């Protein structure tokens, strides 16, 4: 069964909120790091609340508000969030103070705001939403797990609206440490660009005449080799009662690291030989919940029936009915998310 996208809010390294045309002038990364284009937060919360919030909380509350406004919903029936790193800024502040103050005279606020569920619960608190509230933190399945939860919840009770999204931030500390792992590009080698972003969607199991895009199905593959992955993709298509040719655009999560990308490209090429292919991580950067950016992009592509030149060079030769996101995270996490025009 499908669930319908009623509203979207996306704060990303690109101009993805407001009325600007879809990814018309892509913002490049600074070196190997992307930074979100943030809105004026005073539109979404009062100054007193803002002062107490870390950057990821502000982005979470603002993108949640954007999605709810877009959907015309005041309070959703539940809130489901995916985040791998959680609230890194506050975690770093509390850790640093704990060490430098030798465990004395610590301010509890960064500790309170360091847990992963702070984002979803802060939104619940501001909206006074007492419904279902869940936070997933399985690295590059965090957002997929949130979507799967929503799919099941809305299958059980379709006439509900859930706010479902994902959030991951880069801090100076996290970037410095991650660079030392050698996973990002630098002057010596090609590699991923560190990314970040927060995106929320309002989803419902009930269709209305205004709806343009639905999320059809999804699948995750942990630690799958090429054989297991190929089998998994075939199974996914057959469960969806579709063939590879039915996919009008394949959005591939290549990240810039040559050997990882080659394997993903070859799997994608053999499974989907004919259809148009597009890419998104040169716009979002690589981060565990980048699939949420891809869902926003896929939904916009279907709504506008245009594929931005920065996403795919070839001209679309047919209506864009179905977009399949084929994501990979350092070869260990693979996922598929299928979006369909209503």
């Amino acid at each position, binding site marked *: 069964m499908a669930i319908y996208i009623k509203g979207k809010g996306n704060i990303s390294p690109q101009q993805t909120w407001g009325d600007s045309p879809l990814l018309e002038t892509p913002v490049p990364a600074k070196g190997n790091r992307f930074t979100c284009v943030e809105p004026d937060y005073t539109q979404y919360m009062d100054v007193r609340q803002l002062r107490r919030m870390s950057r990821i909380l502000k982005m979470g509350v603002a993108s949640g508000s954007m999605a709810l406004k877009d959907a015309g919903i005041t309070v959703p029936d539940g*809130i489901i969030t995916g985040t*791998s*790193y*959680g609230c890194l800024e506050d975690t770093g502040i*509390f*850790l*640093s103070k*704990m*060490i*430098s103050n*030798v*465990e*004395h005279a*610590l*301010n*509890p606020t960064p*500790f*309170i*705001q*360091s*847990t*992963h*569920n*702070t984002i*979803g*619960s*802060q939104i*619940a*608190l501001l*909206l*006074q*939403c*007492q*419904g*279902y*509230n*869940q*936070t*997933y*933190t*399985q*690295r590059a*399945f*965090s957002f997929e*797990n949130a979507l799967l*939860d929503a799919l*099941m919840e809305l*299958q*059980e009770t379709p006439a509900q609206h859930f706010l479902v999204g994902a959030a991951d931030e880069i801090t100076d500390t996290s970037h*410095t*440490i991650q660079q*030392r*792992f050698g996973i990002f590009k630098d002057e010596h080698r090609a590699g991923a660009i560190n990314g970040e972003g927060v995106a929320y969607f309002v989803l419902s199991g009930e269709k209305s005449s205004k709806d343009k895009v639905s999320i059809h199905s999804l699948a*995750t593959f*942990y*630690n*799958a080799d090429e054989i*297991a992955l190929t089998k998994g993709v075939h199974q996914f298509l057959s469960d969806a009662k579709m063939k590879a040719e039915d996919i009008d655009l394949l959005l591939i999560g290549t990240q810039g690291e040559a050997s990882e990308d080659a394997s993903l490209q070859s799997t994608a090429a053999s499974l989907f030989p004919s259809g148009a292919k597009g890419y998104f991580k040169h716009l979002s950067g690589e981060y*565990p919940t980048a699939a949420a950016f891809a869902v926003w992009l896929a939904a916009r592509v279907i709504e506008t029936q245009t594929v931005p030149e920065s996403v795919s060079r070839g001209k679309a030769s047919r209506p864009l009915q179905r977009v399949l996101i084929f994501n990979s995270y350092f070869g260990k996490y693979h996922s598929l998310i299928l979006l369909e025009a209503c």
Partner: protein
Amino acid sequence: MKGTVHVAGTGIISAIGNSVSETLAAFQAQRSGIGHITLFDSVHKNVLPVGEVKLSNADLCDTLWMPAHTSRTALLGIYAAREAVKASKVDIKRWRTGVISATTVGGMDRTENFFIDYLADNTKGKLRNVMHHECGMSTEQIADDLGVNGFISTINTACSSSVNAIALGSRLIKHNQLDVVIAGGTDALSKFTLNGFNSLMILDQQPCRPFDASRSGLNLGEGAAFVVLVSDRVLEAEKIKASAYVNGYANTNDAYHQTASSPEGRGSFGAMQKALAMSGLSPQDIDYINLHGTGTLNNDLSEGTAIARLYGDRYPKLSSTKAFTGHTLGASGGIEAVFSVMAIREQCVFPNLRFETPIPEVGIVPQKSFESGLDIKHVMSNSFGFGGNCSSIIFSKN
């Protein structure tokens, strides 16, 4: 949405024992696991009591054959998950199997050591000590250890996390997405959480006294616990018996304050009420409630008020087991789920240690001693967390 989700096996490690049988023996002997900090250096050593698992990292690595840099959270998780799978007698590789864990600290016990060197010089600090920081890393290691690659997930809704993990596992089986789910949670003690809770001034310098009028805070604990959830089909094909099944669960948000519960316990009341509605049981059908009962002024009053609203004076046998184990944060829902299943399997209830005087506002008198030979059909377990996350789960006798 059909069929029953059975509990085919349980595994547990906490301050009161390294297995289900050791845990039961500790309850029978009313032996608390609360003591001094021995695992790490801290200015709070000999000041703040904690519930440590009585195995060092080196002991755990030796027993489990795991590399020395593995986070304690992962080690405890692997320890309990192995016991649960073994006890279930299910051939997990034969089925569509998932691992759903819950944790709030993840690899923080190693990250906090990395940070000492890193803060002095950001080119320093051994990367192997920070590579397991993400919560999901501990779940990867548990899944890899068990040989599971079908489905993995991690939940972090603070102290209600592992009830949500068991609920998700149950739903995936009911939706016919999976056949077997190893669900629960794991959290190791860390300086980060110890100092965090201390900064909130909710740690008791004495062994904690949940639901007592004189309570003045919680003791942190650590541990891990998992249940093996299986469908009817698996139970039949594997020719195994399950003493309990998952009968209802609910997740709500108190939406009152980031760390404090509402005075009327609206989130906890809602969670209990919805879990009961799902199971089709009335409050009076519940034979035992394993309370969240952390020992803080706020939690116990709020939870007690919610119980009083639900039951009036006619509440069932109930107790908080945190005076034994300490508050094991993200693992507590899993640990107390295993206690709930033990209550059904052994037909017993566990004492609320160190209780003397009821909280005047609610007057609830919890179970004071270990009692067996009872008729326990339905057990409810509560877990509430920061951010207003409230979850309740009901296990019933098969």
